[in-house]
């Protein structure tokens, strides 16, 4: 790598000096009497200079270069500048091409954003208000929620989605952890929560869904018995995705990814929506009693 860079430098230096020499020779050849300027005079000068060069090439070259040192140095600076620009433009073009591919990957995957956490306090958290606005949008007609106990997402009055679910009129599908599952107990242990409190949190969320159902909202809920893994909040165009770390840590401490629907329907939004529907179908025999 170093050898290649050194060779490139040598080639550029030689190119700069050769170009300077050529320009100096050219400058010498084209020095004709301005009062007798004509094609004939220029052609004569070229023939004479060529003859002198062929007779004593080294001496002629040295004389051309040293006759006007300021011009020579200016030429070296100018030519070197052009060569540096040429090299850097090629590199910039290559980097832009590389960055274009990275950008295209993000666009094709439908990646819309990433936040380091989902805490409502603290800087840099995912924007719950924007998610609520997205849910409440007039042409959004679905709200799919896959979580663990749901209390801190929509179940408790202080939770971010509590209010927006009151006014949302589309279809709501919620899948939460079965409070009687052994995996739910393991999850409670992993986040260092009391199991009774954890189960109560699930029941709080179910009670909330029951209330919404009583208000004639199209709400359905199901339980899963496995280990919580994905947390998803999905609307008709956006998926908010997090992951429940198997060895604990509150899910609000994990990164939030936003995936947007893509025109060709192959981005990660569509894949996560299909995954939710797959989980929903699998939990068909474990519905919540919402009255």
């Amino acid at each position, binding site marked *: 790598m170093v050898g290649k860079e050194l060779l490139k430098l*040598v080639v550029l230096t030689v190119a700069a*000096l050769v170009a300077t020499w050529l320009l100096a020779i050219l400058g010498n050849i084209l020095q004709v009497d301005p009062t007798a300027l004509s094609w004939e005079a220029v052609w004569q000068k070229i023939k004479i200079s060529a003859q002198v060069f062929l007779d004593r090439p080294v001496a002629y070259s040295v004389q051309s270069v040293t006759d006007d040192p300021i011009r020579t140095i200016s030429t070296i*600076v100018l030519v070197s500048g052009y060569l540096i620009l040429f*090299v*850097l433009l090629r590199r910039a073009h290559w980097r832009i091409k590389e*960055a274009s591919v990275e950008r295209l990957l993000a666009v094709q995957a439908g990646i*819309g954003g990433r936040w380091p956490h989902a805490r409502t306090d603290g800087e840099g958290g995912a924007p719950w208000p924007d998610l609520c606005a997205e849910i409440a*949008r007039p042409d959004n007609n679905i709200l799919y929620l896959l979580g663990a106990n749901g209390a801190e997402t929509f179940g408790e009055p202080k939770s971010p989605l509590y209010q927006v679910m009151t006014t949302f009129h589309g279809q709501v599908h919620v899948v939460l952890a079965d409070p009687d599952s052994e995996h739910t107990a393991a999850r409670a242990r992993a986040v260092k929560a009391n199991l009774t409190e954890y189960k109560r949190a699930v029941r709080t969320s179910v009670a909330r869904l029951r209330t919404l159902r009583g208000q004639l909202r199209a709400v359905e809920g199901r339980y899963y018995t496995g280990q919580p893994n994905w947390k998803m909040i999905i609307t008709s165009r956006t998926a908010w995705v997090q992951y429940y770390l198997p060895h604990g840590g509150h899910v609000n401490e994990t990164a939030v990814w*936003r995936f*947007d629907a893509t025109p060709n329907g192959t981005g990660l939004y569509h894949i996560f929506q299909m995954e939710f529907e797959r989980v929903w179908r699998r939990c068909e025999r474990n519905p919540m009693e919402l009255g």
Partner: protein
Amino acid sequence: MIEFAAALVVVVCTGGAIGAGVTYGTRYIDGKLRYDADLASTENKPLVRPSHPSGLDWRIKS
């Protein structure tokens, strides 16, 4: 002898100037355009595409 020394100085200075220009320019371009230039520094910072299909901008509230 003096001419040779002068020529050597010219060659070395030209090479040095070109090398410095290319090195500095390359570092600047890589710093600005490489996709992973800011990877470590943005790990705990939000990254958001300003556009969203719904028209909301999801901009980070500062």
